[in-house]
């Protein structure tokens, strides 16, 4: 069976200098990521800044070449693919609709650009397609003549969505698409993205730091930590029974509007993960409230359990005296 998108063992390293004259060091931003999605799936990718989620998005969009590994869309590798062809398969929606739209262009030209770059349609057909797409995302023909500065944040994000969808891509990579928006507008955009997915059979890679948003839109969730997916599961399973201690901490950090609960102590300590200095064994062990001696030596690699991926030693060999953590017991 061909997947809509398949990511195989993707790696990406950056060279970084510490300070002006500091030592060069290499940073593994994406460190062996593998997943595949069927058409219509929405993979929510969550994790902290520096976990590699945006680098992963850029690798998948072809904005960065991978150090190794490959990305296949409909069974075809993106490596060496012509830019125009890639643009027909995969399109981005970025976080900030204030900087991702050219301020000098009119809305209809912004949305028409991907079509113009393909050069396959007459200008008349192109204009029709643009107006049709704009109408679909709720932008009036009158607004299409305006420039981005005359639109609100929510309207601009609608324009960015129209631009991404005007080529009818297979995959849409949404990198924090609602993070710059107000909650009432965020809800409108999430509802729109969900409708468009159903109507057009789109597959989303949905990157967000907001777990509540991911729970709302995703069918599958991948939790990234220091360049690796440390847990991946269908959305209901992941939220109901988070298996990885990091996932548990992430879920505990979500601030729901319940005044009595106060600010949670996520139990992670104050150490920040440093992608240039990845810990031995399990990369989460220095911050993990449930770590035991073996965690510093053995890397929990590719552990699968009940249809989910959990990179945690607790899932295979919990320490003798410890009782099984709720959620790890087979259902």
């Amino acid at each position, binding site marked *: 069976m061909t997947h809509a998108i398949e990511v195989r063992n993707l790696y990406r390293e950056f060279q970084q200098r510490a300070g002006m004259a500091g030592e060069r060091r290499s940073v593994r931003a994406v460190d062996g990521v593998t997943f595949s999605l069927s058409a219509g799936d929405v993979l929510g990718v969550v994790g902290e800044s520096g976990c590699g989620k945006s680098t992963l998005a850029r690798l998948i969009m072809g904005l960065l070449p991978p150090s190794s590994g490959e990305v296949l869309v409909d069974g075809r590798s993106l490596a060496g693919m012509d830019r125009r062809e890639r643009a027909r398969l995969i399109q981005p929606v970025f976080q900030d609709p204030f900087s991702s739209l050219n301020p000098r262009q009119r809305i209809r030209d912004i949305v028409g650009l991907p079509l113009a770059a393909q050069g396959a349609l007459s200008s008349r057909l192109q204009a029709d397609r643009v107006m049709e797409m704009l109408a679909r995302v709720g932008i009036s023909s009158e607004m299409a003549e305006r420039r981005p500065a005359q639109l609100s944040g929510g309207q601009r994000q609608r324009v960015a969505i129209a631009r991404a969808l005007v080529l009818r891509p297979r995959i849409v990579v949404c990198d924090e698409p609602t993070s710059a928006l107000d909650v009432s507008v965020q809800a409108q955009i999430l*509802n729109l993205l969900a409708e468009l997915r159903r109507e057009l059979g789109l597959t989303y890679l949905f990157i967000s730091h*907001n777990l509540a948003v991911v729970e709302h839109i995703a069918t599958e969730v991948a939790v990234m930590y220091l360049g690796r997916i440390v847990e991946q599961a269908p959305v209901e399973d992941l*939220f109901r029974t988070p298996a990885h201690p990091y996932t548990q901490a992430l879920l505990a*950090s979500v601030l729901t509007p319940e005044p009595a*609960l106060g*600010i949670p*102590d996520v139990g992670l300590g*104050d150490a*920040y993960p440093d992608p240039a200095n990845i810990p031995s064994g399990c990369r989460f062990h220095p911050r993990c409230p449930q770590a035991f001696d073996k965690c510093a030596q053995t890397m929990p690699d590719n552990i699968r359990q009940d249809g989910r991926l959990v990179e945690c030693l607790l899932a295979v060999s919990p320490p003798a005296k410890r009782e099984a953590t709720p959620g790890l017991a087979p259902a």
Partner: protein
Amino acid sequence: MTNSAADPVLSVADLRVTFGERTEAVRGMSLSVARGETHCIVGESGCGKSVTSLAVMNLLPRGAARSAGHIRFHGRDLMGLSEREMARLRGDKIAMIFQEPMTSLNPAYTIGSQMAEVFERHRRAGRRAAMDRAAELLARVGVTAPGMRLGQYPHQLSGGLRQRVMIAMALMCDPELLIADEPTTALDVTVQAQILRLLQKLQQELGLALLLITHDLGVVARMAQRVSVMYAGQVVESGPAAAVFAAPTHPYTRGLLACIPVPGTVRRDEPLGSIPGMVPRIAPGFIGCGFRDRCGSAMPECAGAVPLRDAGGGHTHLCRLLPDATRAPGA
């Protein structure tokens, strides 16, 4: 319930801010913050919450004009102060933290020299003493290896670290009032929880009056003792956080709460609640309810003067609707 108003650190009455003749950004805002109290201003972008804080600090951009019944800091009216007197208070007894630590830190100076400058200026301290103070505060806000961090530049730090630096910098001169404008909006959830816990802890230890400006109702619910919900330049609902979240009385507050996806309550394939339309631009002399174009309960009379209703216990709202009769007594 007037004990919090007895000796407020900050008291603002009938603040108005206009941008020329076309926009009135703040329309008669009043609030007070007591020692050791967290007062949250919550609302969507453009509601006037940030402009309120800038007006208090007299940091409004060119072209903006403020007027107020009074803006008192420990009983002293800031409206009459010269720029020089105001500059003496800023960063000293009144400190501010902004949303974007990357843009509010100077990229060309080290963390240490930026932190030291505040102390040197207000306390006439030498560089050595100022650097010692900076290192002490970095350690206090949970930055490991503070000595090393002092020599680094902002771009070398993660977002969470930068925000810790901003908090440490704000505390350099032992402020009594801390105004934090979206201090955790750019951060990931676990880091947000840690930073908010830190703010809460420092506030309790130092007895700070904290004016916290945010768009995030989750943050408000978990941090605030008092909350003021702003819409189109006015406080549309205000009261003790517990009461406002238990029984929101203004249609806008209710609408906002319906927009938030809450983990565990997601109903798949059902759209989120959303508030149609956008925040209106309000010119000076605007009469009536600013929310009426988006409100499901709007009536013709909403175009006239809007009464301030009291639900008891210091819980008020600006709407023709009476407080919900079904509200549990004493809630």
